[in-house]
């Protein structure tokens, strides 16, 4: 009976999305989310390292800071809110790894 209804629907152009198309769409979305899932431990580690880098340049409010993965329907973003107390005055130094042009 339902197949007859399907047939009539198709005949009169009331084409419904096929269930495999629906599956494709749902699966795509869920995989975007799955693949971006980070364990709380790793996220915490990321936060600690971020603080380490940032405090070389800025004085920040670590308590008021938040770092999280923001997931919307089809994309993922790392959203960080970091209150800055002050900017450290710092003389830019030449990194030792960069070639200095002087050879022995």
């Amino acid at each position: 009976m339902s197949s007859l209804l399907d047939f009539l629907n198709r005949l009169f152009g009331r084409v419904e999305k096929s269930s495999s198309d629906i599956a494709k769409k749902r699966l795509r979305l869920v995989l975007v989310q799955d693949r971006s899932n980070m364990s709380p431990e790793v996220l915490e580690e990321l936060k600690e390292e971020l603080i380490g880098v940032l405090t070389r340049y800025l004085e920040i409010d670590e308590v008021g800071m938040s770092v999280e993965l923001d997931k919307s329907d089809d994309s993922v973003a790392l959203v960080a809110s970091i209150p800055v107390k002050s900017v450290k005055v710092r003389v830019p130094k030449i990194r030792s790894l960069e070639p200095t042009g002087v050879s022995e």
Partner: protein
Amino acid sequence: MSGQVIVVTSGKGGVGKTTVVANIGTGLAAAGHKTVLVDADIGLRNLDLIMGLENRIVYDIVDVVEGRCELKKALIRDKRVEGLQLLPASQTRDKTAVSPEQMKELCQQLREEFDFVIIDCPAGIEHGFHTAVAGADKAIVVSMLEVSALRDADKIVGLLEASELTDPYLIVNRIRMDMVQRGDMLDVNDMTDILGLQVKVLGIVPDDQSIIVSANRGEPIVLDNRSRAGQAFRNIVRRLQGEEVEFMDLSQGGLMLRLKRLVGLAK
């Protein structure tokens, strides 16, 4: 001699891992390779049943790793196919009875004796999974064209990568071409497209009632020349040996073809 260790995994249960292990292993042995099947699904022993070897088990994998018996004594010889042996799982213990290190050691011993070591991994992503994959050189992921199985397959590919098993093979099990043609089942292309992974499709196995019959009898379908699923498994075995084999045309075909199939004039 140093054989190849292949682990068959899926994440989700019920997609046909054990059937794949039984058929690939039997097919490889029938093609002349010394092959051992290892049931790593400790506590939920099933490979012996699918292989029809359940009445001949004396020792199991846990007896071997705990040193209660020699490896050779625990192996069960298949009587139908020369060069095919099974190391059964324990039914009374659980997954923690074998550690990843012990599994590595076991695989090392087995690869010295066999051309192929095929491991049946338990469902799930816990201890049993990590143990089963520990000694493997290559992984096969079995999935079905269905959302939950594919999601789990995607997860497993990531976990395999973390265990340094990159570029796994994929076997698509139980495809129903009539449903694919109606738009009610994902196609293999959709799947590779969505997963967008570095996976090589090793085989596509049609949904086939004869699989249930073969499980009832304990006779792997790969030995049945009339079965289409059997043919799909024979093709997989050839691909594993490095041959280029075209994928079968699984479309249902017209009434004549179906009639011919019915009377055994066509596959």
